[in-house]
């Protein structure tokens, strides 16, 4: 088996401002199971990048190990990608980002990759406020090794053989909120209308943006008794905040649009319009977000949308006082102090 390119025909497809069709944002053929939620996320990513008119080479894709991590090959074939070791994508993204902050870093991970071996790196990338979009394709199960529970499996959720999970789950959104993430969202692979604007908003957020996407595993975790199945997710799906992303917004007249949406201007231009579907929910209130998600665990509702947003946090580049020009572009003569400086420096060692 080799990487199969997709047939490329796009002459009837609409083009974005760069003259590219969505096909220009695709990758090789997916090798995931038919109906896998991850393929829907891939399609949403393609759509979001295309709609944002981002040049493919302006993105860098990073991932670890697992079904989800494989998907970085299935979109943006004209972008660099790196598919590293299990759970350690955040560290690669950190180093890559540190030396060139001008790219859009998109990390794809899963619940197995992020919440077990990768839990530490996930947490510390948030603490550093690494400027990246981190998509966690969450299905509660290890697919490639045939169906073991992952750390996000809900207590009592049943395996394909009917065995209930008896460990408490890790909720990546609650974790991200407590660790100080500035952009925390939850979505469902089955709702592209919600997911695409969230991806766009996450890409434009300057800092760590988490989207935890419930993305059912059709082969190992889509049965009755599973709390990560399509049927269960549709049944308990509960959008809290509706997000629209308006690129290059004009005429920002007030904090609220005519439709009552809260407007947030993003650092790279563009505007977010957040409409609450629960009248009491405030996506600026971290404590409320944590409370809502934790209570949500008891009533079974899966609360989705942009759960928390704070655009005013310094990212890793700012915290490290990194220059505007990427470190990997600095000419050598700016880095080397020269023979004279070396001679002068050594006075202290005499």
């Amino acid at each position, binding site marked *: 088996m080799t990487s199969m390119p997709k047939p490329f025909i796009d002459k009837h497809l609409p083009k974005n401002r760069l003259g590219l069709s969505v096909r220009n944002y695709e990758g090789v053929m997916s090798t995931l199971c038919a109906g896998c939620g991850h393929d829907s996320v891939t399609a949403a990513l393609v759509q979001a990048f295309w709609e944002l008119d981002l040049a*493919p080479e302006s993105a860098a894709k990073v991932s670890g190990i697992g079904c989800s991590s494989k998907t970085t090959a299935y979109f943006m074939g*004209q972008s660099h990608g790196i598919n590293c070791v299990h759970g350690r994508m955040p560290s690669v*993204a950190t*180093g*890559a980002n540190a030396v*060139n902050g001008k790219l859009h870093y998109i990390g794809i991970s899963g619940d197995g990759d992020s919440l077990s071996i990768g839990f*530490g*790196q996930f947490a510390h990338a948030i603490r*550093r406020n690494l400027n990246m979009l981190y998509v966690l394709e969450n299905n509660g199960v290890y697919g490639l090794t045939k169906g073991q529970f992952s750390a996000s499996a809900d207590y009592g959720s049943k395996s394909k053989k009917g065995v209930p999970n008896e460990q408490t789950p890790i909720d990546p959104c609650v974790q991200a909120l407590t660790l100080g993430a500035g952009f925390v969202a939850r979505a469902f692979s089955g709702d592209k209308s919600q997911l695409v604007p969230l991806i766009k908003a996450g890409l434009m957020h300057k800092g760590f943006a988490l989207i935890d996407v419930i993305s059912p595993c059709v082969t190992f975790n889509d049965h009755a008794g599973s709390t990560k199945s399509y049927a269960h997710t549709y049944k308990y799906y509960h959008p809290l905040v509706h997000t629209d992303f308006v690129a290059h917004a004009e005429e920002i007249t007030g904090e609220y649009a005519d439709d009552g949406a809260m407007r947030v201007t993003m650092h790279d231009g563009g505007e977010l319009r957040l409409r609450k579907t629960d009248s009491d929910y405030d996506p600026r209130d971290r404590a409320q977000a944590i409370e809502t998600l934790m209570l949500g665990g008891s009533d079974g509702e899966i609360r989705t949308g942009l759960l928390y947003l704070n655009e005013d946090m310094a990212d890793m580049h700012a915290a490290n006082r990194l220059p505007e020009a990427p470190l990997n572009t600095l000419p050598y003569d700016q880095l080397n102090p020269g023979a004279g400086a070396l001679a002068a420096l050594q006075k202290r060692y*005499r």
Partner: protein
Amino acid sequence: MKDVVETPGEVRVNDFVIKIGNVNGTGSASANGLLMKAIFRMGVPVVGKNLFPSNIQGLPTWYEIRITRDSYFARSGTADFVVAMNAETYARDLAEVSPGGFLLYDSTWPRPDLHGRSDITAIGVPLARMCNEQFDNARTRVLMKNMAYVGAVAGLTGIDVEVIRGLVTEMFGTKAHLIDANMKAIELGLNYVREHYPDPLPLRVEPMDGTAGHILIDGNTAAALGCVYAGATFGAWYPITPSTSLMDGFKSFCEKFRVDRDTGEKKFCIIQAEDELASIGMAIGAGWNGARAFTPTSGPGISLMSEFIGFAYYGEVPVVLFDVQRAGPSTGLPTRTQQCDLTLAAYASHGDTKHILLFPANPKECFEMAVQSFDLAERFQTPVFFMTDLDIGMNDWMIPELTWDDSYRPDRGKVLGKDELEAIEKFYRYEDRDGDAIPYRTLPGVHPKGAYFTRGSGHNWKGGYTEDSDEYKEVLDRLTQKWKNAAAAVPAPVVIKCGRPARRAIVSVGGCDGAVREAMDRMAADGVHLDYLRVRGFPFSQEVDDFIAAYDEVFVVEQNRDAQLRTLLINETSADKTRLIPVLDYAGMAANPKFIVEGVTAHLEIVGDSA
């Protein structure tokens, strides 16, 4: 046995060892450093070895200053003048004094038992009493006691107090009260011995001209300077003894040389990672993205990094790892030195992996080889291991002043830029276009045509995923060839011939160098003449192979239990293993010539041969 210096034995000028036994955390390091540097400033070559515990405060610590007019640069392993400041180790310190040697003790309290050492001279100085009388604060009294023995040792051995005064002034700069307090303590010790022991000891420091053009520097600092001069812009690390001072050094040099004075912007990025699993990942991410990136660590860190090392090897990502080796296994002896990660680093990670290793022997080579490590990593697109150790990394070594050639330009390897990508029809990441087993790479963000997917899973020459046996093997075979080609690019071995026909030779590595050279001198005096090759890179060049083949037997001298260098020689050269005789030291101390002389002599006795 009296408390006075009587019958001075043979006068030894600029050729003896001072050893100070102290308690960790009492500020003895600066006192000992002061003594050593004062001797160095007098033009007398010195070797300093800090033997410190894995502890913040309270455990025993020793500092050895070897004064060596012949410019030997190994630890001598003897102690002619012991300063016993630690009651806990007194008996042991006393036992170590060479016959005819001297013991300085704090005579504030009754003189401790000499355990029958009638062959040494004990010198009492009431250090604590004098400092308690002169200084008020408890902490100050402890610190000043150390300065007082500096004065006493200086007075007894002839170390120039004006040189010490100059150093104290430099140390404290504008803080006049600290200069005064420290000089006061030094003079307490000095004046006391002048009054009570007016006759000079037979152990004497006299000015000479043996340190001109030299500096005293530790290997971690020199390696850090090398990183700066190599143009490294990214370092990720997790604190671990004995590598921590390498990143501390890099940070301080970068803050001196790479911060924009107007904007405060930093032309470097240092990230303290959550662990070594992350620090190597960060360095790989930065290397993948086109920066010169590194991570300093020690053996436990290499163990943790192993999975990522295999990824960088197979994905062909340049990255430099500084392994400041310490004694293992497991946590081992974190503050003791060894060369015990040689085989670990050579083949780090699961599957078939082979790496490029560089072996500096002193801080000068640390500086130079740090630069070479980045050149090799980028040229060969692979992890490069800089294999230093605690002795080289953390002790101050006397080395010729570092020099820099401003015409140096980094070897960034084969990286296709925008115009080159524009000009070619299609880019394939792992294509061996030049037949040298090194493919071209591209950096993210440059051109859509340069996009490729770096993966640790099976891939073909195009960079695509594959499970096809032939495609998989093709890449693996090219990696082997690439590694072999590096043998001609790593630093060449250093060969020292004894000048006579020799049937036997020594092969050694890294920080054993000083001990080997001194052992060769000692053995030559006894009629045993050996040639010597020091390997400086892995894979081994043909020269190493040819050298070994030219002798009946080769002693492989190294600091680990399992003869790891010998293992690598057996694995990677055509050497006959029965002719490679291991000479091993794994006690955790800086190498001294004794184990080499003993190991070689024992073997020669067994085979009934003398040369």
